[in-house]
């Protein structure tokens, strides 16, 4: 009898235990409602907690809440809600803020400015190279270098900086060894839309003669306004085999994110002159957040500044000499920025 009681008690405890651990809400917490109002509040508060550029952009996010919370209701359609969120996020004017809604009816919204496409054509440049080596797909190389016909001017192009730092350590060393005999170089950063800031640091270090601070970054570390991590200092770290002869760096509005932190670093090298258009103006990393309704939004959680503490978010980096290609010129076979770069180097 005693054994039976013991066994029954044990079995009851076991069943209760199983019931307890099977209860998701008790063991894992509650999920927010997926309705428009709840999703709006989640989106607003996620930016309020994590967005790193309110101070830089001088934007009062509470005012934005006051304005938009009155426009949201649970009867809105998904498209109406997407339009409202897009209008709210456009106040940030941040090229690293975007939002996507899944299929069916996929939509994407980008908060930042848009610039005309077609201001740069790699194929146009390839026609004027006498020697060309590339890595990656032939029609869309990751790295391309060569020499302009009838000159001793080298050309180096990177599609992006998204590979691991070791990739650039190897390929830039190889490229610069092949271009060591040239007198000058055009570095084309007009295709670099983004990538890894560590890769940008390595590539720029191959043009550096001395260790120099070029960037300070910090990230939100709590929901408290203005609560950032300590500054992380980014320095050029000269490499053996560095190219220290004159370089013209070409930039345009397509040079974004890690392409811009690369440009920040190259600006510190005295042998580098920058020609072209302003860069895009979106520096910080932009991790993604999921909304309760399944949409995904990207935002800048960092605050990236140059070595003096100046932020160029939403502005972009101004070249030493502004030469802006138009799509019409490029489609007619003229790259004025490149022509200017070559003339600067030939004048040396």
């Amino acid at each position: 009898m005693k054994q039976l009681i013991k066994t029954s008690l044990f079995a009851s405890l076991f069943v209760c235990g199983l019931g307890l651990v099977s209860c998701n809400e008790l063991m894992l917490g509650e999920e927010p409602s997926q309705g428009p109002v709840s999703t709006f509040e989640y989106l607003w508060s996620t930016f309020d907690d994590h967005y790193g550029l309110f101070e830089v952009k001088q934007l009062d996010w509470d005012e934005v809440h006051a304005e938009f919370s009155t426009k949201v209701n649970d009867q809105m359609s998904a498209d109406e809600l997407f339009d409202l969120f897009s209008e709210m996020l456009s106040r940030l004017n941040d090229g690293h803020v975007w939002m996507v809604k899944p299929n069916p009816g996929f939509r994407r919204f980008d908060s930042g400015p848009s610039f005309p496409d077609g201001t740069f054509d790699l194929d146009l440049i390839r026609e004027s190279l006498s020697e060309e080596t590339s890595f990656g797909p032939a029609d869309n190389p990751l790295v391309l270098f060569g020499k302009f016909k009838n000159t001793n001017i080298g050309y180096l192009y990177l599609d992006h900086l998204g590979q691991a730092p070791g990739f650039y350590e190897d390929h830039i060393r190889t490229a610069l060894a092949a271009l060591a005999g040239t007198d000058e170089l055009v570095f084309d950063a007009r295709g670099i839309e983004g990538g890894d800031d560590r890769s940008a640091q390595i590539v720029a270090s191959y043009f550096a003669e001395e260790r120099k601070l070029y960037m300070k970054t910090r990230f939100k570390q709590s929901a408290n306004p203005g609560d950032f991590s300590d500054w992380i200092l980014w320095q050029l770290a000269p490499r053996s085999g560095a190219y220290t002869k004159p370089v013209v760096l070409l930039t345009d509005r397509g040079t974004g994110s890690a392409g811009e932190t690369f440009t920040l670093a190259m600006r510190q090298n005295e042998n580098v002159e920058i020609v072209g258009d302003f860069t895009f103006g979106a520096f910080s990393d932009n991790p993604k957040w999921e909304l309760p309704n399944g949409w995904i939004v990207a935002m800048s959680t960092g605050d990236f500044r140059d070595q003096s503490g100046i932020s160029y978010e939403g502005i972009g980096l101004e070249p030493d000499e502004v030469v802006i290609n138009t799509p019409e010129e490029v489609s007619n076979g003229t790259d004025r920025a490149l022509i200017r770069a070559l003339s600067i180097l030939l004048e040396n």
Partner: protein
Amino acid sequence: MNRLLKNLLAAGCLLGGTTLGFSQTKSENPGAELTVSYLRGTQKLHDLQASPMMYFTDYNGINLDYKRMKGRNRWEFGSEAKTGSMIAPALGTREFQFEEGGEGFLLIPTQYFGEIRAGYQRGLIQNEKQETYLGVNLRNQIHYADGLAMNTWAMNLLGLGVRYTHLLKLGTKHQILGDFQLPIFAFVARMPFSNVVSQPETSQFKSFMSGSTFTSVNQFQQPEIRIAYRYRLARRSSLELGYSYDWLHYSKPQTIKKSNHELGLSWVYHFQFSPAK
């Protein structure tokens, strides 16, 4: 007559062999055992740093475990590797595109996780009916998923905890095992509040791990229970069926709660026999 003699001889051999086998089982104790397990489980994750929604992962995995027993002392070293697809039941399967008009892709992150562990236990009770052990367990668990809300998600837990094991012997072939462990101290590495890991001239893994914080049971809870039934197949091998459940709670930088329900089917190889005392 000849046939009867043969039958008697065969029966005698069989009885003798069985008796010998039985006596060997009784008079010898394995000094070590190697366990290979197939694991099948469900992980439920609610990590507010990654998503407000819960993610379920039905996973498969393997476990390798080596146990050394000498007198009252038990040492254990083990490792596990598991993988499965993560689904948020409230969101369903979602198809995104990189841009409007672009090609669609399903956002179903794959999670890879596993652990290595080492432990020591000291016998409290050791008799013919039961054995109990109490000791410490050092365990490192690592989780990685690419594409959770289009981000990399990772977590590393290095915990030092107490472990209690209770073994019930039901005859010579059947055993019931109960096990409980609780980390007391832990180093926890999670994605930072900004969800960005980026340091100059430092690998992302190193940057991620350098963000580890030391914590203890008042802030970090991860109790685990396991019950198992073991059947002795032969002198050198056993079959084991086990169920384990663990629950995790930690609140920095944002609250994470996680639970695992797991079934394990194991084959145990016994070796390094020594005479029983």
